[in-house]
Structures are given as C-alpha cells and as structure tokens.
C-alpha cells in the first residue's frame, strides 16, 4: 500500500528537523573551538606563545603587564592535586564497599544520597570552604591563610567523590558473577576478591571514572574563586592563596570588560588553555570507556 504523498513529505520533514537538532551539538563544539581561537588570536599576536607558556608571572592588569600562564596552571594543578588525593581513594573505597560489601538496601539508599554531593550548587560549596572549613583548618594549621588552596581542594575532592564512586561501582558490578564465584571458590575473602580480581577486571571503567573526576576538578570554578584568594602565585604550598585558570576568568569577568581589549582577550587565552587540558583528559577517558566493552 502506498502512503499519501503528504504523509511521506511530513515524515521526511520531521526527520530533517530531528537531524538538525542532533547536529546542533556539533555546531556547539565548532562554535566553542572557533570562538576560543578567534578571540585569543589577537592575544597571541601581541604576546609570543613562548612567553605565554614559560613566563612565571601573570599580572595582566598591572602597568607593566606580564603574561606568563604558569602561575595559573600551577594553581589549577595544586587545587586539582589536593582534590584528587581526597576523591580518588575515598571514591574507590566507597565503590568497592557499595559494589562488593553493602547489602542491596544500603546501596540503593547510599547511591542517590552520594550523588546529591555532585548536585549541590558550587557557590554553596564555596561558602562552606571559606566560612566553615578554612576557620576549622586554621585551628590545626596556624600558618594557613584565610584564602588558600587546601580548603577548596578538599571541598572539590568531596564534591567529585560521586563522579568517581558511581562510575567505578557500575563497572565493578558489570564484572560477571562467575568471575567472583571463581575467586570465592578458591577460598579468597571479599577483600582479596575485590582487590585482586574485580578491580583489575574493571580497570578500564575505574580509570575512566578517575579521569572524569580529575577533569571536573580542573574545570571547577566557584569554589576556588571564592575560597582560594585570586592571587596568581607560582607556588606548590597549599597553605598560600592561589589563582586557577577558571578563577582568573571569573575574576576578570566580574569587572567591566570592554570588548576587544587585551584584558578581554586574556580570558580567552586562559580559556583555551583550560579547554585543551580538559579535552586531553576527556579523550583519554573516552579511550578507557571504549576499552570497557572489549574485556569479557
């Protein structure tokens, strides 16, 4: 039976509209790349790339501006490092516990509550880091300044626990039961099974979850903008104030930002650095995710 021409036309038109919607994501990515390159192009015309990448001072608003991105990258890596030290061990332990030990009821309850940690607005976390955690830490570490890398680092770490634990747990639970039973049959405890059998088997998924977590920490903005102090210091001392790439962008955007000035272009130069860092991690993460399916 042939359908009326109008129906066929309508079907086609709808498919076209849906395809355009799906293509919009590619348009978004292209726009991001284009805008970042286009707006920072003027910046790199004035500032040599070499000076940008190796300079140790970032003072774009001074009378004698210096444009070395290293202090911002250093601040970003310091905060991310602290966050990773908190999130990866805790996230992995939680994932093993929920996947191998916890009874069904506890798991069903714990997962959504943990995921709330990632849902809370980051500006609320910033408040918590600055006005709750920092004063408490100062009681134990008298040298800690009011703005520092430590407190936002810890808070970001806690914030990304669910990114690590949820995805790791999913990939551990995807390990087939018979592999577990094989290990139990050899007399292994749950602990031995988890660390010698399940974690190696689920390695790709766990690695992917770690990388997603790290990428989140690098891109996190408000907690550091509030609690880390907006000072581009080239230091690895977590007790001192630092500035991250993201916090710099926010700091400059808060002021008056005339289009086309060098100041305006610096945030795109910082943005492109950040974008490339997270893109690199996302690609590695994606590669690990693809490997998951090849295992069993």
């Amino acid at each position: 039976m042939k359908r009326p021409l109008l129906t066929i036309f309508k079907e086609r038109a709808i498919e076209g509209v849906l395809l355009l919607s799906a293509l919009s994501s590619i348009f978004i990515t292209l726009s991001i790349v284009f805008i970042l390159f286009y707006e920072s192009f003027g910046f790199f015309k004035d500032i040599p790339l070499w000076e940008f990448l190796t300079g140790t001072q970032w003072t774009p608003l001074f009378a004698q501006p210096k444009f070395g991105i290293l202090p911002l990258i250093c601040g970003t890596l310091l905060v991310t490092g602290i966050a990773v030290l908190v999130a990866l061990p805790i996230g992995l332990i939680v994932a093993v516990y929920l996947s191998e030990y916890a009874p069904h009821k506890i798991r069903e309850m714990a997962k959504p509550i943990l995921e709330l940690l990632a849902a809370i607005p980051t500006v609320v976390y910033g408040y918590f880091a600055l006005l709750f955690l920092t004063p408490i830490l100062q009681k134990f570490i008298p040298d800690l300044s009011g703005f520092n890398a430590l407190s936002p680092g810890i808070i970001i770490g806690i914030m990304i626990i669910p990114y690590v634990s949820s995805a790791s747990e999913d990939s551990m639970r995807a390990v087939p039961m018979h592999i577990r039973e094989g290990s139990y049959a050899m007399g292994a405890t749950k602990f031995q099974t988890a660390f010698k059998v399940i974690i190696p088997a689920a390695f790709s998924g766990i690695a992917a979850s770690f990388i997603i977590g790290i990428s989140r920490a690098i891109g996190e903005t408000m907690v550091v903008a509030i609690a880390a102090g907006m000072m581009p210091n080239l230091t690895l001392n977590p007790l001192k104030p630092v500035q991250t790439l993201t916090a710099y962008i926010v700091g400059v955007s808060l002021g008056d930002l005339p289009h086309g000035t060098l100041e305006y272009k610096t945030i795109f130069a910082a943005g492109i650095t950040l974008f490339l860092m997270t893109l690199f991690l996302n690609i590695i993460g994606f590669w690990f995710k693809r490997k998951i399916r090849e295992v069993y």
Partner: protein
Amino acid sequence: MGPQRNPFEEIRKRIVQNKLHDYLFWLLGFFSTLIGFVVLFTLIIDLFIDGFPRLSWSFFVSYPSRFPEKAGILSAWVGTTLVMVVTALTAIPLGIAAGIYLEEYGKKNWLTHLIEINMNNLAGVPSIIYGLLALGLFVYFFKFGESILTGGLTLGLLILPMVVTSTRESIKSIPNSIREASYALGATKWQTIKDHILPYSMGGILTGVIIGLSRAIGETAPIITVGALTFIAFLPSPPLSPTFPFISFKWLFDPFTVMPIQMFNWISRPQKEFHLNAASAGIILLVMTLVMNGLAIYLRYRFRKRIKW
C-alpha cells in the same frame, strides 16, 4: 631444626588474618561512605544556623541593598525564574529531538558516531567554557547583550547533553516489540514515536530534564562570564501588558541577576552581616536543588516500578 610447625595451625592463622582484613576493609568502606553523608549534613546544618534567622517575607520581596539587614533576593529569584524559562525552552525540545534522532533514526554511520563522540565530549567541557562561548557568540556576535536571553541560552546549551543522554537511555529501554506492533497496524515512523515511544519514555526524560534544570539553577560561573550584574535593584519588564498585543518579549533583553550570583556577591563582601544573607540565599538554593533531585529520584523509582515490559 626448630620446633615442628603444624601446617593446619599456619592455615588457621592465615584464615583468621584474612577475615580480619576483610572486616577492617568493611569498616573502612562503611565509614568512607559515611564521610559523604556527614559532609552533606554538616553543610546543610551550617547553612541553616547562619542563614535561617534572616529568612523572612521581606527577604523575598526586597531588592539588594547596601544595608545588609534591608537586602533581599527579589531581583535574583525573578531573574532565576525567567532564565530557567529560556533554558527549559532551549534544552528540552532540542535535547529530546536530538535524542530521538540518535536512537530511532540515526543509522550506524560516521555521522551518528561523530555526534555521539561529540555529545560525550560536550558533557565534559567545564561550564565556564560555555560562558566564554556565550560571551563571544551571544553577547557580541548575535548582539543579544548581557541579557536574560543570553543567560538562558547559555545554560540551555550547558544542560543539553544531559537531556539528550536521558532521552536516549529512556528510549533504549523500550523493547522493539512495541515498535513492531505499531508498524504492523500501519503507523508511520513518526506516528509510532509520537504515540508510543515518547509517552512511554516520558518518565525517564522528565527525570533527566529535572536534574538538568536543577544543575542550571545552581550554575554561577558561565553566568558571571556573560556579564550578569551583581547589583540589580529593578525587575525586568513584565511579560504581560494591559494593552494590545498583551504579551511582550522585552524582558528577554533586560539585564538580570540570578540567585547564585547574588549569593556570590554577598560572600565576597567583607562584612559578616552580608555573609548571613549569603547563607540565607544558600538555603533557598539548596532547598530548590534538593527538592528537584528528590523529585527526580522519586520519578525514576516510580517509573522503574510501574513499567514492566
């Protein structure tokens, strides 16, 4: 030669030791899971202790002010509401349409594959990068200015991957027999989707939309980047007018502020009284996020229970 060692003794010791390790790890795991709960709980309590006394009717209906005890969140919550309208109108139709295309129409070719990889990558782009995109594209290229429209579109793009993913997951769980039954009755592809696939997957899609919107409500960084103002003591123009044509879209182009930016502004002030205001704004943000996420969890649970193929 030392004393004779009893092999059974060895093994028994081993077993006891292994069981001890197992038990210790169980404890470690339990307490690590608790850390998350404790932080969540402490955060909520801390906010309530600081901010609860400031919550009053006048806090909701006052503009920001130089005097902390007179300052309120009127322009912030109105701004958040209007921005969310634009965000929802952008992300929901676009995301559902893209999800339907990828699940129901997309053939396994390079284009579909590219869109999939790209969607995955977009979900991992830091939110502030969306802010830079919006600053270059919406504010200066399309000349929307630092307006509600710009803010809403930015957050719409930001949560698009979440809506697409939840749409796809939810469509994927519908068995093929449903589609085949519909085709067998002579329905076209679109009729099948419109009358069967979409209604059956609505629960999952709704869950994703709610979670996406709850994330958008709390987003601060991209909105700062597009230049939302931190001090706004007026409301956008009303969407309804008493004279013809009764409806006005002028509000889309008005400057705005949103809840998280108002909170950020109060945190960055040195006076302690403003910090208390920040805590009150934080309570409202937190309650909105928790309610929306709770609703999403409930919906997911309900739909999972109700539908049995």
